[in-house]
């Protein structure tokens, strides 16, 4: 059937399984929006307040479901506004297809109005990108974009479509099925056998997993392996939610602000099985010290990650789910009471250190009725929130506190900008996650992060998104301030926010209910109000400016110099 390029785009999106499109119109995508109008019962369009919010929403949609998130924006500023969102998806391996309009082919390269070379701009932050200059390539390019986005290690793909291509007419035949993923070469059997031998010989095996376990849907296989080996597990920030927080072998997140027990257990391990991780600097600290005492078996679907940051004794390239299933068959169940006892002692030590650090904090705040502590806030929210809520964070201290403490039960219920660390990620992502899953999204944010993209409250209202926003409001840019406290002689340059923003009134201005809480009783009331209604709600929780995220392993440091309390 003959149709315009714009219609071909929308029909191909439908064919590829897209049910929601986050976007913002503009001059060079009017045709695409016009075509969308005809298909509005097939694709839900979510109009955001800013293209960045749309990109984060598509990312949240993808992270919460594993499906490809789709975002659309116009040329020039529309396209450049997507870039932070695309980069966030790229660094955390999230499948997103971004569609941008561009000026007609004849106008390209002439610095036309709203013309930007978005293919050039986005090249280093996309898995691949395209500009479609010929209508006959349009449908297949979009199919290829979906295939690339979700195949292997997922990632964002951008398709730039000049306006004349949207307006041209060409034959379109829909395909019956969405594009299939590219097949992955199965992990080498010989290497898996070698891994099984090493695991059998290891006295103190430890499993370090990351976002690859979630992307590869390998949680069940991971847990089965850990239980079979009786091996403790720790994870990177991106690995959170792959294993239930309460699992007896799970020691929590490791790294710069990781749990003491997981970081310390890894340090005394003699073999680390690393699954779907990239050994980021935040995870390892001093790279030479990090793996000084143990060997590493590294399994990843992306061959370029193997030996990239940390040298491994054994590398295995392959799909994690399949590799772990096969590894499970190769290993014998074992008991390891000596190792378990060591781990239990570390847990006790961690408990004591945390209790001491919290006691210090509570003592400091005893006379202070105006502030809540981070653990009071997080514990109150987790007690009040539905168990299946999708937890989303922005970036900064609140992000680390939430990562350390919020109990998670299911994969894909903890969304955070881990690699890029993009402040302003959260609200868009929370809206996307809520729309994708229908489950309530709870956004933990800070007054700094929230200030970056709070205009998306407008989207939460127009979409009636069930998003509960908890602002951990300490009046400062807390994470940078924490570095200034610890490493820059308390010279608080640029981190004190003398803003006097009344977030409750801001929320009300957007048509969102809100409440301020500086006591536990007020917080409980606010949470009760937030969770007993549908639609967005903003809680402005007051905190002291001086709370630190602990433990902290200083940048480039190691387990030897973890800071667990500050007098």
């Amino acid at each position, binding site marked *: 059937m003959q149709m315009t390029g714009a219609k071909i785009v929308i029909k191909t999106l439908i064919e590829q399984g897209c049910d929601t499109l986050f976007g913002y119109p503009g001059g060079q995508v009017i045709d695409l929006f016009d075509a969308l109008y005809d298909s509005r019962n097939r694709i839900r369009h979510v109009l955001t307040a800013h293209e960045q919010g749309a990109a984060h929403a598509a990312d949240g949609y993808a992270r919460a479901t594993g499906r490809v998130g789709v975002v659309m924006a116009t040329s020039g500023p529309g396209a450049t506004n997507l870039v932070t969102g695309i980069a966030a998806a790229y660094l955390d391996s999230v499948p997103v297809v971004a569609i941008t309009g561009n000026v007609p082919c004849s106008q390209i390269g002439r610095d036309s109005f709203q013309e930007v070379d978005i293919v050039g701009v986005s*090249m280093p932050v996309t898995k*691949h990108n395209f500009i479609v200059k010929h209508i006959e390539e349009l449908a297949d390019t979009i199919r290829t974009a979906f295939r690339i986005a979700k195949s292997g290690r997922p990632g964002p793909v951008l398709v730039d479509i000049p306006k004349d291509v949207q307006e041209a007419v060409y034959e379109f035949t829909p395909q019956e099925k969405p594009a299939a993923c590219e097949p992955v070469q199965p992990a080498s059997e010989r290497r898996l056998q070698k891994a099984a031998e090493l695991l059998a010989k290891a006295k103190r095996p430890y499993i370090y997993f990351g976002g690859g376990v979630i992307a590869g849907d390998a949680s069940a296989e991971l847990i089965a392996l850990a239980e079979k080996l009786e091996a403790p597990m720790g994870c990177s920030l991106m690995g959170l939610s792959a294993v239930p927080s309460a699992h007896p072998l799970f020691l929590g997140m490791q790294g710069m602000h990781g749990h003491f027990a997981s970081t310390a257990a890894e340090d005394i391990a003699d073999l680390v099985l690393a699954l779907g991780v990239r050994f980021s600097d935040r995870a390892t600290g001093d790279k030479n010290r990090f793996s000084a005492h143990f060997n590493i078996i590294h399994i990843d679907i992306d*061959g*370029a990650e193997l030996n990239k940051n940390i040298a491994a004794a054994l590398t295995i390239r392959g799909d994690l789910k399949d590799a772990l299933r096969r590894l499970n068959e190769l290993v014998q169940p074992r008991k390891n009471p000596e190792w378990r006892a060591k781990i239990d002692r570390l847990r006790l030590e961690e408990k004591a250190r945390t209790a001491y650090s919290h006691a210090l904090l509570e003592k400091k705040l005893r006379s202070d009725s105006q502030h809540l502590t981070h653990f009071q806030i997080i514990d109150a929210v987790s007690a009040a929130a539905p168990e299946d809520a999708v937890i989303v964070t922005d970036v900064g201290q609140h992000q680390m506190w939430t990562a350390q403490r919020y109990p998670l039960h299911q994969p894909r219920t903890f969304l955070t900008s881990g690699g890029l660390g993009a402040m302003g990620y959260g609200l868009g992502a929370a809206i996307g996650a809520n729309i994708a899953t229908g489950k309530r999204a709870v956004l933990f944010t800070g007054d700094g992060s929230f200030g970056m993209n709070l205009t998306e409250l407008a989207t939460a209202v127009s979409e009636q998104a069930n998003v509960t926003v908890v602002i951990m409001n300490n009046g400062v840019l807390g994470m940078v301030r924490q570095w200034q406290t610890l490493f820059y002689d308390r010279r608080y340059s640029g981190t004190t926010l003398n803003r006097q923003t009344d977030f409750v009134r801001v929320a009300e201005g957007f048509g969102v209910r809100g409440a301020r809480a500086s006591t536990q009783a007020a917080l409980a009331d606010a949470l009760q109000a937030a969770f007993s209604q549908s639609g967005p709600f903003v809680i402005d929780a007051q905190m002291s400016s001086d709370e630190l995220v602990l433990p902290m392993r200083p940048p480039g440091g190691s387990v030897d110099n973890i800071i667990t309390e500050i007098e």
Partner: protein
Amino acid sequence: MEQQYVIGVLVANISGVLSRVSGMFTRRGFNIDSLTVGETESAGLSRITVAFRGDEDIKERIVTQLEKLHDVKEVEVLDQHETVIRELLLLKVRNDAETRQDIMAAVEIFRSKIVDYSKEALVCELTGETSKIDAFIDLMKAYGIMEMCRTGIVALERGENCLRTIPEAAVE
């Protein structure tokens, strides 16, 4: 141990592919000594030859990162002992009665050619391995190099081994 590597890269012959390949080197902080690109026997493919210095680890990272690029179809590290490596030089040197004979002698010994002759200047053409080109340039410095241009290296494996292992039909 640091050494020079030469890799052959077959890429889809489409616009932007050179940016993707060179951009990968820039973004990841790898240095390029030489990069050449040209068409191949197959219309859909171009061949890029990259020379760089680095250790085994850097070489591995470059290869695995290149393999991830969608438009890259094949990457191979060429064994320099089993590879024919050539570079082309065009060099313009002052044409001076005093030095002309010396220049002509050097041209002959290096199996170079004079491809343009004028009263003021000679243009020499030379192909060969990088070391030969370097030596010729060194020699010509004394006679007053006016300008020069070298292509960077191209390389093919000796014998029947070829880079391309994928059937043409699979090339987009």
